[in-house]
């Protein structure tokens, strides 16, 4: 480590760009690895739920690594703002999309891989105390009813 200190002190633009390029190469390699692994998982996994799992890895870690690489290499304030915005957006949006997709797949009673060990959502749906029925997952028919106060509290799981 002490060898690096004079290098960092003497860093002119060329050397700083070189160091940033090394870091960008590492981040880019990681991002590419996750992207490719996600694509392979989408093809190879035996089950729709496992494919969703693979695809969400590809979105978050792969795109974040590649965005960090672009930020380190180009190194301007414009790309910093946009890259941070894109990273935050994908980290929020990708789990939401995967969750909704998996929920609608489960709602459609898609078959699971035979080795699947547990299905807690099916157990919850079979439970009469569970507050969300099958019909409320899609667009409900008829006017929606707002539940407030004591009603909402009594509808909580396990309260009845």
């Amino acid at each position, binding site marked *: 480590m002490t060898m690096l200190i004079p290098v960092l002190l003497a860093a002119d633009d060329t050397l700083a760009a070189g160091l940033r390029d090394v870091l960008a190469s590492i981040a880019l390699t990681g991002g590419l690895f996750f992207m490719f692994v996600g694509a392979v998982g989408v093809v190879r996994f035996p089950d729709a739920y496992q494919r969703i799992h693979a695809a969400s890895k590809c979105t978050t870690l792969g795109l974040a690594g590649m965005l960090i690489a672009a930020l380190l290499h180009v190194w301007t304030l414009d790309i910093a703002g*946009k890259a941070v915005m894109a990273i935050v957006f994908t980290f929020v949006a990708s789990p939401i999309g995967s969750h909704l997709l998996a929920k609608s797949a489960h709602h459609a009673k898609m078959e699971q891989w035979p080795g699947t060990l547990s299905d807690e959502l099916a157990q919850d749906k079979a439970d009469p105390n569970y507050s969300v029925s099958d019909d409320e997952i899609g667009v409900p028919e008829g006017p929606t009813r707002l539940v407030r106060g004591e009603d909402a509290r009594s509808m909580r799981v396990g309260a009845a």
Partner: protein
Amino acid sequence: MMMHLPDHLAPLLVASEGVTPWTRTMLDMIITGGIILMSLGVLLCMIRLLKGPTLVDRGLAADTISIQIAGLVLLLTIRLETLVVFDVVLVVAILGFVSTLAFAQYLGRKGAAV
């Protein structure tokens, strides 16, 4: 400003005008490999899109393809060192998210989506 460096570290500072630094060469090689790798990923997702047994698989494969295309645009940004195409990444990410939401909503309304 140039401070004194030990002799064994001097070659780090040599890279200057007219000479491509080795770090840049390494990054270029990784980008070239990455373009091949992600095109392969798009092809793999295309296989799942074509043969996927259910609608969920197709929607998932389309979402993954959009993310891979955003990654390809990012590689183009790094290679060209310009911000002109970087906005495409944001637009594709947002479009992929919204289309996934709409697709899940459609499947939930349709009920038996298999």
